[in-house]
């Protein structure tokens, strides 16, 4: 193989983001295999990774991981630039904004479960608005709001609990991010960091 003339030096942060994004992408792809009763109602397991990254490494890395997951996940599932991609993207952006605010709530009272539920509601909120304005220009989409809201509460709670449990077992002060999710594959060696 010809040695590349461009040398990219991935920092520790780059590797960490790539590793977490890879874990999130695995969860996205795995989740796509689960049959679901209604389009749009998804557990959103990849958000567990976003929550963990948010709690351990801050908002900026959570944004990277979440957006890389949306992009790569859609490419892998053949959804890139399809309506589903824009729904994912709008949901991810809205939940990241809400997470950025929610992480400043008092830690004593609000944990990852709160973050998860608030982000889930931001997610469905943004998706419904995009769907209403663009995909289904009719107020009928709001008819499904109770279903989406219930899904947000249930999956928000479950994802938040799993994230809280993983965070507790990771013991945040240890500083070694390697043992993340059970399914986390390490990023391929020599993989160029996304920039």
């Amino acid at each position, binding site marked *: 193989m010809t040695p590349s003339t461009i040398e990219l030096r991935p920092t520790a942060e780059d590797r960490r983001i790539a590793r977490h994004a890879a874990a999130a992408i695995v969860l996205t792809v795995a989740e796509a295999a689960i049959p679901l009763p209604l389009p749009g109602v998804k557990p959103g397991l990849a958000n567990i990774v976003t929550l963990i990254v948010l709690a351990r490494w801050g908002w900026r890395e959570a944004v990277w991981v979440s957006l890389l997951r949306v992009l790569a996940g859609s490419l892998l599932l053949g959804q890139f630039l399809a309506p589903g991609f824009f729904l994912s993207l709008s949901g991810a952006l809205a939940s990241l904004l809400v997470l950025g605010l929610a992480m400043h*709530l*008092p830690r*004593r*009272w*609000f*944990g*990852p*479960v*709160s973050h998860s*539920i*608030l982000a889930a*509601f931001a997610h469905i909120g943004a998706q419904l608005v995009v769907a209403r304005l663009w995909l289904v220009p009719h107020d009928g989409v*709001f*008819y499904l*709001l*109770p279903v989406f*809201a*219930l899904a*947000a*509460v249930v999956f*928000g*709670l479950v994802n*938040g*609990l799993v994230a*809280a*449990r993983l965070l*507790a077992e990771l013991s945040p002060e240890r500083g070694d991010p390697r043992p993340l999710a059970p399914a986390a594959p390490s990023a391929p060696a020599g993989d160029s960091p996304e920039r």
Partner: protein
Amino acid sequence: MSLDAARWRALLRPGDVLLVVAGLALCAYAVVALWRGGAPDGAVVRAGGRVVAEVDLSRERLIEVSGPLGVTVIEIRPGRARVASDPGPRQYCVRQGWLTQAGAVAICAPNEVSLSLTGRAADYDSLNY
């Protein structure tokens, strides 16, 4: 990873519980606000094309309407209405029974009387016969 309930509960902070409850309350509110569209809130009685009575469905009453064949009796109960009796030969509108959905219509064509229920969101945009 065990499914020990106490350990999972220890991960919940007070605000988390509050948010779960608030989320469920929002769901319940959304169901009530968005899914009761089919419930009727009033009834309109027409004879010969003209509106002869416009009533709400809050209390019981009988409405008598006269047409070319005789008197049609409309019975109103809370949340529903029906044609109780009609002089028409085939009794279709009487046999239709209680109307309970917004937009539902019973027509006694021979006597030129119709009963229709109104509501915030009817199940039908229009009906053709």
